[in-house]
Every structure is written in structure tokens, then in C-alpha cells.
């Protein structure tokens, strides 16, 4: 009989469930406890139903026993005469015995324990539901990686490769004259990704621009998931985070662009369209 069919006391169920949940019990455990309390309450309130159910179960058992020999007889090919009788018995038994199933009678053949075996051994262990790692993965809308994702990746790779090959064919990487420690070029610039920091060097003490700020950026970046505890990924719910990040990112990009294109000899301010570009990759 399905669990949902068991009659229960809905009021008791709701009350116990709320108590358990308020006490901080796991949801599934709370439901189980509430259900058992509700069923017991229902049975206590309706003793007559249980009494009525008992004879039905007993009748079912009787049918089961009657059916067993008949079923055993049916497959025997030689018992031609027995076959119709067996079929008749099954037809008669089937409607009454359908809802109940009975286990085979105990055989009485209990295996003797091995020599030296411990007196007691446990076959079952009680595992609380909290102790089981439940994998909750929503099925969702999924597609095969091959071909859908892989083809997209191949196309992306191909486009990038072609772009890079064409670029490399027509644009040569710079190679200046041999390194000379005694001849400082003017201006001397770091690689482009550090030009934001070099730009900061104009405004702050090197200790701040070169050590404190980069350390702050790296540690701050690594700490982002532990600072931003907002669980939502919807842009509408993350206005502060998005605004802050965009501002920082744009700030870094602006400094880098200034350092790259708006700084000339002596690392002084220039206009790239007037004085030219002092920038090398």
C-alpha cells in the first residue's frame, strides 16, 4: 500500500512539522516524524477502522496459502488433470489476493554460525539522513558537448588562430638595439600591463604604488567571493558589486591607457595625436 494512502491526521501533521522545523531539524527528518505522529494520532482517534482492516488482511493470507500449491502444480507438464483445477483456483484466488503479498513461509533451515564467530554481529546500521551526502543536481536543459560545444570551441579557436597568423605575418614584434645598461631610453616604460602601476608612481610614493596597491589588488581580488555574500547572480540584484567592479576595472584601464599613450619623454604628459605615440608592445 502506498504511503500516501495511509490515513493521517492533517492537523497533527502540520503542528509536528512546524515544531520540528522550528527546532532546526532537517526537512526530510521533520516530515518523517510529523507523518508518523499524524498516523499514530489518526489510528488512536479511529480504532474501529483498524479493527475492520484486520480480517481483510487475514483473508488475504488465507488466499495466499491456497494459491501456493495450485501454482506449484500448474507448471508440471504430466499433471494434465490437475491443470484445469489449478487454473480455476488461481482465477478464484486472484481478485481477493491481489492487494496483499505474502512472504514465503520460514523453512526452519537456520544456518549454523561458523566456529569462532562472535556471538553478536550487527547486520544493519542506522544512518541518519543528515549523514548522507545528498547530490542535488537539477536536470535542467542540457545538450551534448559533442557536437554542440566542441564545434563552437573549434570555430573560436580557428578564428583566433587566423587572426593571430594574419597579424603575425604583417606585423613584426619589436627588436631594438642591443641592451645597454649605460644608456637609458627616454621614456622608459614597463610592459603595457604594468603601465597602470607606473602611472600611479607619478602620484604616490613607490612603496604605495609599487607594493601596497598591487598587493591590495591581488588580495582584494582573491577575497571577492568571501566579501560578496549575496547569493544572487542576477545583475539586477548585484548593482553595488557590479558598479564597484566596473569602476575599479575602468580605473585600471584608464590608468593603463594614459600610461601607454599619453606619456612621452621624461614620462611627461603628451597628446598622442600631436607629439606621437611612445608605446611599444
Amino acid at each position, binding site marked *: 500500500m502506498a504511503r500516501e494512502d495511509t490515513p493521517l491526521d492533517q492537523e497533527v501533521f502540520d503542528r509536528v512539522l512546524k515544531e520540528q522545523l522550528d527546532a532546526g531539524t532537517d526537512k526530510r527528518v521533520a516530515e518523517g516524524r510529523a507523518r508518523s505522529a499524524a498516523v499514530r494520532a489518526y489510528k488512536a482517534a479511529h480504532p474501529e477502522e483498524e479493527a475492520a482492516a484486520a480480517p481483510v488482511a487475514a483473508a488475504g493470507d488465507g488466499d495466499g496459502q491456497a494459491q501456493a500449491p495450485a501454482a506449484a502444480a500448474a507448471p508440471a507438464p504430466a499433471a494434465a488433470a490437475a491443470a484445469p483445477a489449478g487454473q480455476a483456483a488461481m482465477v478464484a484466488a486472484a481478485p481477493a489476493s491481489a492487494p496483499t503479498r505474502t512472504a514465503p513461509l520460514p523453512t526452519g533451515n537456520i544456518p549454523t554460525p561458523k566456529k569462532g564467530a562472535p556471538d553478536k554481529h550487527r547486520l544493519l546500521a542506522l544512518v541518519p539522513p543528515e549523514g548522507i551526502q545528498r547530490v542535488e543536481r537539477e536536470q535542467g536543459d542540457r545538450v551534448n558537448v559533442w557536437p554542440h560545444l566542441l564545434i563552437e570551441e573549434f570555430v573560436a579557436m580557428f578564428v583566433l588562430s587566423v587572426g593571430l597568423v594574419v597579424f603575425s605575418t604583417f606585423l613584426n614584434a619589436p627588436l631594438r638595439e642591443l641592451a645597454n645598461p649605460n644608456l637609458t631610453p627616454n621614456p622608459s616604460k614597463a610592459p603595457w600591463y604594468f603601465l597602470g602601476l607606473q602611472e600611479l608612481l607619478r602620484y604616490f610614493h613607490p612603496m604605495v604604488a609599487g607594493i601596497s596597491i598591487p598587493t591590495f589588488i591581488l588580495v582584494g581580488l582573491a577575497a571577492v567571493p568571501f566579501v560578496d555574500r549575496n*547569493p544572487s547572480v542576477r545583475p539586477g540584484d548585484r548593482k553595488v558589486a557590479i558598479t564597484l567592479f566596473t569602476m575599479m576595472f575602468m580605473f585600471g584601464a584608464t590608468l593603463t591607457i594614459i600610461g601607454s599613450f599619453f606619456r612621452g619623454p621624461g614620462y611627461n604628459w603628451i597628446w598622442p595625436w600631436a607629439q606621437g605615440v611612445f608605446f611599444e608592445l
Partner: protein
Amino acid sequence: MKLRPPSPSQVGDRIRETEVWKSIFRPGSIFRRGYKDTSRDRALATMNNVLYHLHPVKVKRHGLKLTYTFCLGGLSFFLFILLTVTGIFLMFFYRPMADIGGAQAYADMQNIRTSVFFGDFVRNLHRWGAHLMVFSVTLHMARVFYTGAYKPPREFNWVVGVILLFLTLGLSFTGYLLPWDQLAIWAVTVGTSLAGYSPFIAKQMNFLLLGGVVVGPETLLRWYVLHVLALPFVLVLFLAVHFWRIRKDGGISGPL
């Protein structure tokens, strides 16, 4: 009976039925005879390939949308492979020696540009690819931020990503010195002069980075080893963790 030569498709079929061919391409490979466009063979095509099995068999549909990932992480990885391949090629022709009088490193650079077959082209690929990788890794980080993909359970993978960004910058910066031209040593001099301001350990920091008080031959050797061996090794370790965690944290983030 007239003997006729087999058609090319028959030859192809016969080759693909040989034991050797079947031993190389596992069941489900699209190169194996009998590949059918069924969900079973599609799944096997991913599972039975050493490269593709970085991916799960199925992914969330919204992850395919180009404007969700812009393929930035994958392209950064592709650039890393491209840089490894071109870098190995360049290593054949380059010696990290910059002794006074005969700067072998610079001479090798000129040799790569003028005498080595495709040398200039491969060097261009390596250099432009490196700049592009710094760019794509940075953009990848921005994308991950904007899609909120660093949120639980992916916090640690974000941290790994920040380490990877740092390593990418380190690789690019160490490589910048290797041509040993004016651009290289002065960019590195400017960049590392900041390390001299670190609190308490300024001198030690400078000496550790440069192998001396100024950028010199020792710096070149040091940065060469960092560039071709040490940093790539560390980067690959973190890449492995990064990819592994993507799978363990439930694949691509989202949908928004």
C-alpha cells in the same frame, strides 16, 4: 574475372577496420567506422577522447550562448598551448647568455629573425600571442565577475583563477626580458625597481629577482629558467585544479 582497383572509400573503410586503427581510436570516436549520430555515440565521442573528456558529456544549454562566456577561458587555454608550442620552437635557437662583449641572447634573436626558417613568424606569434593571453585572461576574469560565477560553490576556483592571472603576468614579464634589447632591459628595470621598495626585504627581494643589484646576465638566466620551466610548471598545476574544479563545482555557472 576482371580485377578492379578498390575505390577510395573502400580503401578508407578497410583501413578503419584494421586492428591498428581500432586500437588507436576508441569506440565512439568519429574517426572510427560505424560512428552514428546517436546520443550514445555523441557521449562516447566526448568520453573516449583524452582532450575532450575535460568536458562533461552534457552541458547546460545556456552555456553555449556566445555572449555568456565569449569563449574567453577556452581561448586563454588555447593561447597557452600555442605559446608552449611556439616557445619550444624558439628554445631551439636561443641561448640565455648576455656576457659583456658577446651578448649571445641578442645575437640569437637576430639569427631567429633573419636566418631561421619561419623564425620571425614564430617569434611574432609568440609575442603577440603572449600579449593577447594577458588580455584574454583579464577579460575572462571580468566575465566571471559579471556572471557572478565566483559565488558558492565556486569561491575557491575564483581564487585559483586569480593565481593563474598572476602567473600569466609573471610569464609574460619574464619573457619580456629574453630578447635582451633596450626595450627588454629597461622595461624590466622599471618594473622590478618597484620591488626595491618592498618593506623589510627590499634588498633580498631585488637580489632574488635579479640575481644581482641591477638587471644583468644573471637576471637573464634566472628569468629564462622561470619563463620556460618553473612558471609554466606551476601554471599547469593550477590549470589542472582550475579545470577539475569546474567539473566538481557543477560545470558552467548560471543561468543568470
